[in-house]
C-alpha cells in the first residue's frame, strides 16, 4: 500500500472519528489542531487505524507519534514489514 492510499484511508478515519468532514491531513497536523481530538477520540482513532490497516501498534511506537507524518510513517513501515 503506498503513502497516498494510507493517507486517503486515514483521512476517512479522521473525518469519522473526529466528526469533521473538512479535515485535511497534512504532515504537521497534531491533536492541538483538531477540535475533537481528545483522549477518548484518540483511543478510537488508534483502534480504527489498527483495524483498517490490520496492524498492532507497540506502546513505544504510540509514544513517538508526534504528528500525522509520524503516524503515516509508522503505518507505512508496519504495512511493508507484514
Amino acid at each position, binding site marked *: 500500500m503506498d503513502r497516498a492510499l494510507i493517507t486517503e484511508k486515514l483521512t476517512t478515519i479522521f473525518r469519522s472519528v473526529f466528526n469533521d468532514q473538512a479535515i485535511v491531513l497534512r504532515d504537521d497536523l497534531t491533536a492541538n489542531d483538531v477540535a475533537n481530538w*481528545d*483522549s*477518548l*477520540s*484518540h*483511543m478510537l482513532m488508534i483502534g480504527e487505524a489498527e483495524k483498517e490497516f490490520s496492524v498492532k501498534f507497540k*506502546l513505544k511506537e*504510540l509514544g513517538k507519534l508526534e504528528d500525522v507524518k509520524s503516524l503515516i510513517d509508522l503505518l507505512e513501515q508496519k504495512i511493508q514489514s507484514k
Partner: protein
Amino acid sequence: MSEYLIRKAKPSDIPFLADVVIASEKAMSDRLSFTTLFNKPEEEVKQLIIQMFEEEVDGCELSLSSFIVTEFEGQPISGSGAWIEGFNGNMPSGILKSNLISYTFGKESIEYLKTKSHIVKDVMIDREPMTLQLEYFHIKNEHLGKGLDDLLMKRIEENALAEYPELKKVQCQIFKNSVFSIKILLRHGFRIVGSYKSDNDDIFDYLPFNVKLLMEKEF
C-alpha cells in the same frame, strides 16, 4: 503523625496503586469507568491497571513517577497522583493515557468504547499545559481525619515546585458527588472554576456522576 512515612512510589507499590486508582475512580459510587466503558470485569481491570503502571510511561495519571505513597507500620495506606501537564516535552497526559489503554485493553474493549463514548463526552475536560494536575488522592478510611491530607497536599506542591519553580497553579477534576474530597480541596484553598454537565441520563450507568468540576488553586 510522626509514624507516617511519605515517599515516592516504587514498583512494589503498583498493586496498591491499582487499588487507589479503582477506589478514586469510583468516587463514592459503584461505577468504575474502566469496567463500564471497556466492558471488563473489575478483577481484570485491576490487572490491566497494574500492567499500565508497569509500562512506566511518565507524565500522566497512570505513571508510577506521578505518585507518592504514605507508609504506616511498613504498609502503604495512601496514594496520591500528580504531574505537571506537558512538562519536559511530554505529550498531553490524555494522549499518553489513551495510548496506554489502547495498548493494554485490546481491540474488543476499544470497539465497545466506540459505542459508549458519546455518553461521556460532555464531562471530558482538557488539561491546561504546565499546570500541576492532581488526580487520585486516596487515604485508607482508618487514617482519615488525622491531618494526613494536609501533609500530602503540602508534599505534592513542594515536589512540583522543586521540579518547576515557575509553576502557577494546581488543578483537579472531580465528580460533583465526591463531597468529602471537594471539602478537603476547598479547605486547601482550591476554588471551583468550571462545571461540566452531561444531560444524557445514561451517564449514571457508566460514570459516578453527571457533573464534573474543575477546581484550581493558584500558588
